[in-house]
């Protein structure tokens, strides 16, 4: 019962807000929206505790029948296991905080029923995604969150740019969705089921008897699913929608484009980890894409000025880490980073949102600076967030990110390059995050007079949730402390997630290194490299931006103008896509329409009719329209027929 409440409270909130309370005041929509989420969180918490108390064994909660055709069956079944239970808490928990915060953020809007309706709907869809026991229910959520993302990015639809950004997000996601769909088809074709629990059982019990064809199919399935993950989790080459998605209100960026939706790809890969384990080639691709994304996005973030854009690229980069973790087979590390990232990135986005509110919706960091004085609480929590994301020892990011890097290091010699990319990305992360912190909160204030007058700390509705998130960002890391570090409990999270992960027997050999013993010194050394790099990058950022834009920073920008311009323009990827994909497609469509359709096909159709007209014109040139003539012709015809009949 409680479980159904978790699912349907947000939906109920969405319907209430979206269809019934359209004339209600902002406060009402805020309260309804948040209450639905808080209620869902409480239910989720109770369900979760109950679940853990009973041993934390995966259970399938059967629901209504959904699609049944031929031999295909996809009921609304839900799965409650350690992975989805954790996601349940993250989504409803962080979701509640963000809902509460959003009331403050959106208070200048005329009405917000639409906003909260979409947000609640999003949570509902996200829950479908994580709770679904089969690929199809997951796909409802998968596309459903895409829809909500589309609606929320385009929330301020009066601006054409926002509408365009929403559309871009939806369409790029759809490219990934095609991959997901093909994955479903292949799965069904190979295994005649799309249910996770059945698949897992099938692979693990009858696993040894998998024939070559099936293994081959699994390779394609995982690849197709990974394409889906690339779309949703903003990996190369489909990441382009995420930076544009920042057009939406900031709480949306925090909830959807940082904490929950974008991690769906990682979640999905973890959910079917038993398949991925069987496809080492796919895993290799996944890891490479992840590492490349992490580095690629991190370099772009180095030179952005829009505070949200920095965070957006940072999100892409961090997602790259998670994907890298999955690709290495270290799903625990990936999911753990998902968890810590959800906390600190939500925190950073919400903090940025507070800054943006205080700055009257200006997002350019060149106009900020010195906000520490005006917004002490925000500054403090942002500081915690930054320390967490750059992996400062003791903060959550440190534990989760270093775990992934360590796994990359130990995965074998071939993977050292991935480790290198990850480490460089970590250095970049440290640089741009500290740069963001410096430009926003330190140095002189560069805003205009009018804005400065109104700078103030935000209301408790807004900073309250920030404090909670800050605590999580700091403490979350201690759930999974590496063994080398002296701490009372080690690897709690790894233990927690172990039942979810399952390496099929055939692939066990290939993944032996995951559990191999290593010398403590080696781990310390790897850790030291990243920490040193991080510290170095942080100091240089402080040096360059600690007092506003130092002359050195401008000089560097001019000295390396080429690189700087390429980075500011995001490697011209958008331009490349526009000219290499969108324009040719448009031209081709135009060609298809004007030439193929109108000129050729329709030309033939009309040509046939014109040919008929021509022939009839030729034969009817004597047709004066005179009744006599017609009658005579008829008569001659009758005579002819009579002649034939009579003789």
């Amino acid at each position: 019962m409680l479980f159904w409440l978790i699912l349907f409270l947000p939906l109920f909130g969405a319907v209430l807000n979206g269809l019934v309370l359209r004339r209600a005041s902002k406060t009402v929509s805020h309260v309804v929206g948040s209450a639905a989420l808080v209620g869902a969180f409480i239910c989720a918490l109770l369900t979760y505790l109950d679940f853990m108390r009973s041993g934390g064994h995966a259970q399938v909660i059967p629901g209504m029948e959904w699609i049944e055709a031929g031999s295909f069956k996809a009921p609304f079944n839900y799965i409650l296991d350690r992975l989805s239970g954790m996601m349940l808490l993250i989504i409803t928990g962080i979701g509640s905080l963000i809902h509460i915060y959003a009331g403050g953020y959106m208070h200048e809007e005329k009405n917000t029923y639409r906003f909260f309706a979409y947000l609640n709907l999003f949570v509902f869809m996200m829950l479908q995604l994580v709770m679904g026991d089969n690929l199809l229910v997951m796909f409802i959520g998968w596309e459903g969150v895409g829809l909500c993302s589309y609606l929320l990015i385009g929330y301020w639809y009066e601006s054409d740019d926002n509408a365009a950004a929403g559309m871009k997000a939806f369409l790029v996601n759809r490219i990934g969705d095609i991959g997901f769909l093909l994955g479903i088809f292949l799965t069904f074709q190979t295994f005649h089921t799309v249910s996770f629990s059945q698949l897992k059982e099938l692979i693990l019990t009858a696993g040894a008897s998998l024939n070559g064809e099936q293994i081959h199919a699994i390779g394609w399935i995982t690849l197709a699913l990974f394409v889906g993950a690339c779309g949703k989790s903003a990996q190369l080459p489909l990441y382009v929608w995420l930076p544009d998605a920042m057009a939406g209100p900031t709480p949306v960026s925090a909830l959807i484009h940082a904490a929950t939706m974008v991690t769906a790809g990682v979640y999905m890969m973890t959910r079917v980890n038993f398949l991925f384990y069987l496809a080492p080639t796919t895993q290799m691709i996944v890891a490479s894409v992840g590492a490349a994304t992490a580095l690629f996005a991190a370099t772009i973030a180095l030179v952005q000025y829009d505070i949200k854009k920095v965070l957006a690229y940072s999100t892409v980069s961090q997602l790259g880490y998670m994907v890298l973790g999955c690709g290495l087979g270290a799903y625990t590390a990936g999911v753990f980073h998902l968890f810590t990232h959800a906390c600190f990135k939500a925190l950073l986005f919400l903090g940025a949102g507070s800054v943006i509110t205080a700055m009257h919706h200006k997002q350019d960091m060149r106009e900020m600076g010195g906000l520490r004085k005006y917004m002490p609480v925000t500054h403090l929590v942002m500081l915690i967030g930054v320390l967490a994301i750059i992996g400062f020892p003791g903060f959550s990011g440190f534990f989760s990110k270093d775990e992934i890097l360590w796994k990359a290091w130990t995965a074998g010699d071939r993977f050292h390059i991935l480790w290198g990319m990850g480490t460089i990305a970590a250095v970049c992360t440290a640089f741009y995050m500290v740069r963001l912190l410096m430009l926003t909160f330190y140095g002189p204030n560069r805003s205009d007079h009018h804005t400065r007058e109104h700078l103030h700390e935000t209301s408790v509705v807004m900073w309250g949730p920030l404090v909670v998130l800050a605590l999580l960002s700091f403490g979350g890391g201690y759930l999974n402390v590496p063994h080398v570090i002296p701490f009372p409990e080690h690897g709690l999270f790894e233990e927690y997630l172990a039942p979810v992960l399952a390496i099929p027997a055939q692939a066990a050999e290939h993944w032996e290194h995951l559990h191999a013993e290593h010398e403590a010194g080696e781990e310390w050394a790897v850790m030291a490299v990243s920490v040193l790099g991080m510290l170095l990058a942080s100091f240089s950022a402080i040096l360059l931006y600690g007092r506003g834009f130092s002359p050195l920073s401008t000089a560097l920008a001019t000295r390396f103008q080429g690189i700087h311009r390429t980075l500011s323009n995001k490697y011209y990827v958008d331009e490349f896509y526009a000219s290499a994909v969108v324009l040719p497609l448009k031209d081709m469509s135009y060609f298809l329409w004007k030439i193929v359709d109108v000129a050729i096909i329709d030309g033939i159709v009309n040509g046939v009719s014109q040919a008929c007209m021509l022939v009839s014109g030729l034969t009817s040139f004597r047709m004066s329209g005179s009744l006599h003539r017609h009658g005579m012709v008829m008569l001659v015809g009758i005579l002819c027929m009579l002649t034939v009949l009579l003789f």
Partner: protein
Amino acid sequence: MDFLNHHVLSLLTFVPLLTAFAVLLSPSLGLARWVSMLGSLLTFLLSIHVWYYFDGQTSGLQFTEIHNWIPTFGIKYIMGVDGLNLLLVVLTAFLTPLILLSVWHLDGSKQKAFLALFMSLECGMLGSLVAFDLVFFYIFWEAMLIPMYFLIGIWGGKNRIYATSKFIIYTFAGSLLMLAAMIVLYILHFEQTGIYTTSLLDLYGAPPAYPTQMWLFAAFAIAFAIKVPVFPFHTWLPDAHTEAPTAGSVILAGVMLKLGTYGLVRFAIPLFPEAVVSYAPLIVGLGVIGIVYGALNAWMQTDAKRMVAYSSVSHLGFVVIGSFALIGGGAALSPEALTGAIYQQINHGISTGALFFLVGVIYERRHTRLLADFGGLAKVMPWFGVMLIVATLSSVGLPGTGGFVGEFLILLGTFMASPLAGSVASLGVLLGAIYMLTLCRKILFGPITHEENKNLSDLTPREFAYLTPLAILAIVMGVFPNLFLDKIRPSIENLANNYKSYKIVAEAPALNEAGDKRAEASR
């Protein structure tokens, strides 16, 4: 009650025709409106009756009526419903009252004729759906064209004569091919068995010899392909849709196009099963091309109605490939794809019908359909925005709407039949989103650039009344597909698995048996 069960299909078919006469005889337009509305509601109730008492456990033909019509030639009056046409019958009867509601406010000197033509059109469509005799079917099939010809030709846009002539001549050309094939089939069947018959019940399961089958199938397939329309026979559709009045577009997209796909499933496949195996790659290929081609064309359109029209080409491509997904080396049709194809027909009727209604709503307010003349309507017409978004989402096949269930099953089945076709067809999912979201964005979002758009009024209660059922149904069909699939499953499986030796048993009207079964089940 007994009478009703024995004659419900005849009633269903001819009540609209009687209504048409009653409309013509009504002294005033006001009365004519009510008469037509009552007539269409009665038809709808009858269709619900059929729906309710339809036994979803059997693949047989139900509510069958068989009478000798022209015994000399073996032509019979046979009507019946099974899983393949049940949903379409209900859809037709469902859409008609909504359409009547949408033209409620129109009053021209010829409005009465409009209503009468519309009701006779409904008769033609229902008749061709339930007819189970070639000649009987053919009569309805052609009769249906006549009202449509006038609906477009009299109440259409400024290029209406061209459009309506193109529509009727094109369709007619195809139909003549079919007629010729029917006669050949009739004679061949006589030569084979010594019986003159045009009844499908007899013709099923006794296909003509192989080389002839190819020709006959081609003739039937072209006739239906023109109606669907399958690429490259589609060019009449954008013209007809653009010029037709809103009501005409809705019924054209909602039901008439489906008669083409229905015809393929009902006639072409089971009558000429061996030809199906040879032609399936070609037809699936054309379907896939149609999906991509229609979508890309739709993307380029500047006229909202034309865009929706091209989208129909794309969407019906799905239905076509779903109907011809052969699995097991041609041993059977994929039941998943076939289910999807049947389901997608209904869903397309709902979503595209709603889209045409919505375009009609703004056309009435602004007298333009060019996308460039709109923008930012979400602000002034929020409810219109909601409806448009729902229709769009259903059209692009977002999970949770009916479009997804249909498209997914079709793609799944097609993929299993031919991974290449399935993969390329999946592109339609993306391309569909491209043009539909472009449509949404250009109409709803962005700044309001035209002064006239600032004072547009939102949906009136009447407009709500005909849009809401469609919106709700679009979602219900996505969330509770079993509500519909449960009824049609046996018929589809029968055709899918036995299409090579298809037989359908005519069952007596079985209110009592069905009622008994229901009672037993509840016990």
